[in-house]
């Protein structure tokens, strides 16, 4: 299955996994940081929302490394597009467009609600696929095992339900 991005062939999963392991270990060995992405949502919020939750020390002290790291994520995606055939804003979503459709407004609403769930869920769980799924599991942390099993299980159940039951894929 080609990527949505320029129909490129994805890199092999073992290579990609090794690359992620390299970034995770380099982040710890070189800079003593625990890999994590979703805490960056709080960092971004802390710049614009003057509430005590975002003003706490854990957020303030992490901004100086999380912000450049997350900026790098966007640059990495941009580079990937440029090197893979050029960057252009696209709004295609593969299986979603083929099976669910809903038009532009519906798609925007669907994505917005999805974003709300991701924001709330990652704060509720204190981490995402990176902080819990990669780092936490690798560090044999029980909360990360519980969290990863929860979001993978919930992802499987809801995706199977939506695509196979509701939309008869």
């Amino acid at each position, binding site marked *: 299955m080609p990527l949505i991005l320029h129909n490129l062939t994805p890199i092999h*999963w073992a290579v990609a996994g090794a690359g992620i392991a390299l970034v995770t270990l380099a982040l710890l060995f070189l800079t003593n940081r625990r890999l994590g992405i979703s805490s960056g949502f709080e960092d971004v919020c802390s710049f614009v929302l003057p509430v005590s939750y975002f003003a706490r020390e854990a957020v303030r002290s992490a901004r100086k490394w999380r912000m450049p790291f997350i900026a790098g994520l966007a640059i990495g995606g941009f580079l990937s597009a440029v090197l893979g055939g050029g960057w252009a804003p696209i709004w295609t979503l593969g*299986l979603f467009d083929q099976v669910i459709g809903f038009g532009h407004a519906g798609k925007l609403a669907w994505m917005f609600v999805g974003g709300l769930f991701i924001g709330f869920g990652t704060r509720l769980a*204190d981490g995402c696929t990176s902080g819990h799924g990669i780092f936490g599991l690798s560090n044999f942390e029980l909360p990360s095992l519980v969290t990863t099993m929860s979001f993978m299980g919930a992802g499987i159940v809801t995706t199977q339900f939506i695509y196979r039951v509701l939309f008869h894929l």
Partner: protein
Amino acid sequence: MALLYLALGTLFGFVLSRSGAADYNYIQAMFLFTSFQLYGIIGTAVVLTAPGLWLLKRYGRTVSGRPIVVPLKPLHRLRNRVVDVRHVSGSDLR
């Protein structure tokens, strides 16, 4: 230091983008059990990171000689933890 974080983030973003980890179809295919790709990526990353982490913690220091400090995620026990909107807007939910 900011440039190092930027570089590591860029590598991470590139890998996620090119491997399918940031691709809608691959994420759905993982949950629909029609592609092994993302399970393979997460599995490989954990299998390689775990011994690396163990060695780093045993070796006990970063490149600059400072001791490894890994902030652990708290375990929220459901029986004494009721999620309350006041916690979300306050400072209790971390």
